[in-house]
């Protein structure tokens, strides 16, 4: 096992090293550095788009999921979840186009479309997480004299938190990956470099958009992982 591990590590290191040599030899590093100013500016736009649309999706999605999971709503909740499911089958590009035709060009329609795209995983996971809290926990809480809101805050939400976080994580990953499309309706972001690169047949420019986008997605996922590790109580956190 140890030899396999060290072999893997050796391969990885030499791979990264060779990649570095190739990158340097092909001049791609210089090219990327040439776009550095653009990368910084557009990354900021990218992050702002993700933060606003993702934040709004969390603010709306979690309460919506909670609301749908309430016993009173059980009768309607599955059909509403189906409607949301149908909503996600619409390709993001189509949502962007529709949102443009309705809200025009710019940041607002882009945020709206991104919000729609990342809403469903959050609602779905919040709903599933809450409804799969074992009935006996709710019965125990009920039998001890907790009020419905106390049960929600002290028992249901903490026990569903891991699943809810997984939904938010998925949604943000989708979100970061979709932001480049926002450029097509004038939303800005790293898509500007990617699409311009494609159109002008300039791989360097395209990579200057694509690589930071990929890195951003990894970074956001990593940070969400850290948050999940830190915020979810140890008793219900499979990670620790």
């Amino acid at each position, binding site marked *: 096992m140890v030899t396999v591990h060290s072999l893997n590590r050796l391969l990885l290191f030499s791979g990264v090293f060779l990649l570095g040599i190739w990158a340097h030899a092909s001049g791609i590093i210089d090219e990327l550095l040439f776009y550095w100013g653009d990368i910084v500016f557009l990354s900021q736009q990218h992050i702002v788009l993700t933060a606003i649309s993702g934040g709004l999706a969390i603010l709306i999605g979690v309460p919506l999921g909670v609301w749908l999971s309430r016993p009173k709503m059980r009768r309607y909740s599955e059909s509403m979840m189906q409607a949301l499911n149908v909503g996600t089958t619409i390709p993001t590009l189509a949502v962007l186009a529709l949102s443009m035709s309705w809200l025009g060009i710019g940041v607002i329609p882009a945020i709206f479309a991104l919000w729609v795209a990342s809403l469903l995983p959050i609602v779905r996971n919040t709903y599933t997480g809450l409804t799969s809290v074992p009935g006996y926990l709710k019965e125990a809480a009920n039998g001890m*004299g907790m009020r419905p809101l106390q049960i929600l805050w002290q028992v249901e939400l903490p026990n569903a938190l891991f699943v809810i976080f997984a939904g938010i994580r998925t949604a943000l990953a989708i979100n970061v990956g979709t932001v480049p499309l926002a450029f097509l309706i004038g939303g800005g972001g790293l898509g500007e470099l990617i699409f311009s690169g494609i159109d002008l047949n300039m791989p360097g420019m395209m990579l200057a958009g694509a690589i930071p986008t990929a890195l951003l997605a990894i970074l956001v996922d990593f940070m969400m992982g850290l948050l999940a590790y830190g915020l979810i109580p140890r008793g219900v956190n499979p990670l620790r």
Partner: protein
Amino acid sequence: MIRLENLTKVFETPGGTIVAADHIDMEVPEGEICILLGPSGCGKTTTLKMINRIIPPTSGKVFIGGKDTTTYDTVTLRRNMGYVIQQIGLFPNMTVEENICVVPRLLGWDGARAKRRAAELLEMMALDSAVFLKRYPKELSGGQQQRVGVARALAADPPVMLMDEPFGAVDPINREIIQDEFLKMQEKLRKTIMFVSHDIDEAVKMGDKVAIFRAGKLEQFDSPDNVLAHPANSFIADFVGGDRTLKRLRLVKVSEAMNPNAPCVRAEDSLEKAASLMAEHDQEYMVMVGPRGRARGVVYLSVAREKRGTCGEHHFGLKATVNVREDLRTAVSLMFSHDVAWLACVDEEGFFKGYITQRGITHLLGATYRDVAEGSAA
């Protein structure tokens, strides 16, 4: 005190009307454990859950300490009742301490007081508070979780406890241990407890009263000994089992069945004295005690008549002794395994207290049937 008056629950289902509890009337005195017993679907759990209104009754009333519970709002009612369920239901997101402090916090206790109480309860449950307070439920064994579940129900010191098959999920060995601990605790706390079970042995062991249900009806409500000795109908007789008289052995302590003020001899007594004592008490053996009264051995009548000298020179070792605090089941089991018809009864420190004989046990268990036979003859 818990009193149920005409408590009824009717479920309307697509398959028709189901009467889950049919005019249940019963009264459990303060400080007693009442076991609700019966096959599954008999209405015992429904009855229990109507007491804290997890299931709202269709009609009828529940009185606690003489007060109609409909005068309390549901939340207050529940906070003043301990509730233990079969799945234990410890909240996995909370530590043991937080779990125990749930009801005290709901009642608005200050944090320090609630924490002191949690530590105190854990110690009472034979769990080291320094080790367990900060643990999460998933880090406990099944038996430990069950103990914490009981501690949580006791947290605010409610006068009434509702327990729905609380020891059902624990393995048989641990269940015995937890039951014993629970009974020992109950001796001190004297809670009024409603306890659902489907296990007749558990009912006999734990209950001061047993209520047997069938198809929503309360069939018999009596002491465990009466349920075993005089089942009200053939259903109950079948339910408690063909060996029900053997089960009664558990209900009687050795101290109640032995003959007290039993004669004994000392090592320095002569064999003649021993022989005359045996003749006087019509038995063929006599326990020899040490200087302070500990059971040391036995002298047999045949030996006492044939030999001369003191008891100390001619005694035999005791094959087995039984503690006076044990139940008759243990005593009978000891008799069987040592092939003897009598046992010397001793206390914790080995002091001789009396004899218990197979004849005596048979006689005692038969007494209740003879009384009834005489009663019906007269």
